């Protein structure tokens, strides 16, 4: 089929868009709604996964008790931690100390303003911050080991409005917030304090996990093998990124919601587009018949219907995606930060293009099958 014919007929079809502005807007707005809603809901999943990805570093590993692969479990006693620190593959500092940290994760005691289980306090040791080069103090000062002091992550600060000077009521008294930090990933949504002091406050004698910096990401296999083959240990080691990604992947509710909601909306938008494109073909009946009479191939006419649908859907899909990006990208929630990466914008736009192709099919077939004599007489 000569490309020149497709180009000419498509140009004619697009030139008529100005006369069909109202109906064209139906497709643009419909597709914008589909793309906007779809990627807004998917951005929750993307936000959760981004937090998971940002929380994990392939050069770090987490070690848990084999019974509970969970930072909150608190099943690792001090002897086990000491053995873990002897494992090969752990990076050491200039003084030969292993870059590893035994940590504890607790739910903050519920208080007015947040429900039980929504805010976590992480107890970290002296190496905890050195293992995390992404950690930066953004205000105040660091907590002092042995003191009842906490520092607040940026996301927890924004969500719960905790400021330096505020106090968290713990079992053994009030713990002031003495600083704020940014740390990337889920650390941002937490409070940090000294692990030993937190263990005493929560009457625990064991920690939940050991975070280690590996000499290099490839050292994980040897590290893991040593731990799993050590008869004195019953532990599980995971790359930090794998652990958080696995946690993020378990949260599939919003993906399912996006599929359901996006699916139903897409059906609506599909019917709307077919209606509009049928009307467009009808209003171009005489033009199409004339072109066909002049020798233009039916395929070129069909291609013009597809071109129009794709163009309008592209404008709508991209517009809806950008509106969603402007409205939601970067908004905070304690569990995640809404995230609309370029991939989601591409997905939203591509989805609307696919819908456009599907919706243009019946009107394109009608355009191709128009009986010339009748059509010229209209």
């Amino acid at each position, binding site marked *: 089929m000569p490309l020149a014919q497709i180009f000419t007929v498509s140009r004619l079809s697009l030139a008529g868009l100005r006369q069909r502005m*109202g*109906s064209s*807007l*139906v497709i643009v*707005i*419909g597709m914008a*709604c*589909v793309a*906007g*809603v779809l990627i807004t*809901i998917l951005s*929750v999943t993307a936000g959760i996964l981004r937090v998971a990805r940002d929380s994990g570093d392939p050069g770090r590993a987490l070690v848990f008790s084999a*019974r509970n692969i969970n930072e*909150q*479990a*608190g099943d690792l006693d001090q002897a086990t931690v000491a053995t873990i620190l002897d494992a090969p593959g752990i990076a050491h500092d200039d003084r030969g100390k292993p870059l590893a940290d035994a940590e504890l994760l607790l*739910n903050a*005691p*519920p208080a007015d303003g*947040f*429900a*039980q*289980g*929504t805010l976590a306090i992480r107890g970290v040791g002296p190496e905890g911050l050195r293992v995390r080069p992404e950690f930066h103090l953004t205000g105040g000062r660091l907590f002092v080991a042995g003191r009842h002091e906490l520092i607040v992550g940026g996301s927890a600060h924004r969500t719960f409005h905790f400021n330096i000077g505020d106090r968290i009521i*713990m*079992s053994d008294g009030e713990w002031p917030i003495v600083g704020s930090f940014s740390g990337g990933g889920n650390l941002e949504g937490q409070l940090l304090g000294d692990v030993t002091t937190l263990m005493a*406050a*929560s*009457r*625990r004698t064991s920690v939940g996990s050991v975070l280690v910096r590996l000499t290099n990401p490839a050292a994980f296999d040897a590290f893991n093998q040593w731990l799993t083959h050590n008869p004195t240990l019953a532990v599980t080691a995971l790359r930090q990124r794998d652990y958080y990604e696995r946690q993020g992947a378990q949260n*599939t*509710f919003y*993906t*399912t*919601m996006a599929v*359901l*909601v996006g699916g*139903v*909306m897409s*059906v*609506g*938008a*599909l*019917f*709307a587009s*077919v*209606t*509009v494109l*049928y*009307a467009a073909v009808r209003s171009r009946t005489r033009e199409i018949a004339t072109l066909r009479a002049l020798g233009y191939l039916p395929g070129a006419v069909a291609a013009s219907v597809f071109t129009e649908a794709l163009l309008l859907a592209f404008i709508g899909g991209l517009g809806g995606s950008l509106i969603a990006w402007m409205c939601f990208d970067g908004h905070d*929630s*304690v*569990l*995640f930060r809404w995230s609309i990466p370029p991939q989601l914008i591409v997905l939203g736009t591509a989805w609307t293009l696919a819908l456009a192709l599907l919706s243009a099919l019946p009107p394109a077939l009608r355009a191709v099958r128009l009986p010339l004599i009748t059509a010229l007489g209209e």
Partner: protein
Amino acid sequence: MKLWPLIWAALWRRPLETLLVCLATTAAFALLGLMVGLYVHTQRIVHEQRMDRLFVVQRFPDRPYTGLPIALENQIAGIDGVTGVGTTHNVFGYHLDPHDGVGVMAVDEGILQGWPEAPLTQSQLQTLMARPEGIYFSRKAAAHWKVKPGDRFSVTVSPSIRADGNPTWVFEVLDIVPDAPIWDGNLILGNYHYIDNSEPPQSQGLGNTFFVAVKDAARGHEISHSIDRHFANSGSPTFSVPQREDAEGLVNSSVNIADVTLSVGGAGLFMIVFLIANAIMRSVRERIPEFAVLMTVGFRRTQLGWLVVAEAAVPCLLGALLGTGVAALVARIPAQILSRDLRQLVSNSDTPPAVLGVALGLALILALASAAAPLQRLRHISVTDALAGR
């Protein structure tokens, strides 16, 4: 009524387009129905929670989880405004398959004082206390696990929390009880003492949550604070919260569900309003000579206006009816055949008659909004020009 043939003729001028518009509207209202249903369900669950009942839990949970000493029950019962206290102790494990999670809420003799509308009669509670290994299943739970009275039901907790090291409890199903309105899921009620006596001595005599009934709902907050103050300097500080506030906090803990559901439903309608307005506008434009003839034979502009509104209202109302019906049908899909996430979305969607009322109301508003521009056009028709084809 005399307009009806005209409305019918207008709709049937292009049957395929009318059908497509109806289908698009149905999809939009099905989405609205599902979203409003989800919103209504969430709100209902929150509002069915009572302000005159408090939950009292351990303020500083430790690990392994201990809970609050059951001896606190009597002290809480003595606090001004408290009318009754019951204790629960929850056991979470699985039934046969480690992926089939199950929880048993073990209750003590006082539960009907703290939770008077619990789905147990006094005599059923007495039977439960007399039959330690007995459990009651809510209807939803019984349907989920397909059990009937007299069946044996095992719950395995791994690693074991029993003193004898056995990870499995074997219960006997005493009866099927109604679903608890405040409990949005499978409820299994067991005997507190049976569970408690099975545990090691250091874990005995503890309760997870105290259900506390208070005389005056308006004093729920005040009594919560009284309880927490009372135990603030004790070895077991408490955290007390009115049940409804607790539910609200949980519902909105990650994303505000009202914002999500209503925005999505609104977006669906927004998409449709342009489609219908466009279809009606095109229809009016194409029938201007017809309108001119009608005006010539005596139809007033107001009557023709109603004709246009009715033409917009028919697909809207039909779509609202069908869409809400689809949403109601989807909400009735058996939960067993849905994935966990779909179950949360679909099975938790209530479509009471009020949702249909809301949908029909919105359909009328949608019809009026869609007809606004075509009506404007109709107002400015010049009969002579139209008849002359100008």
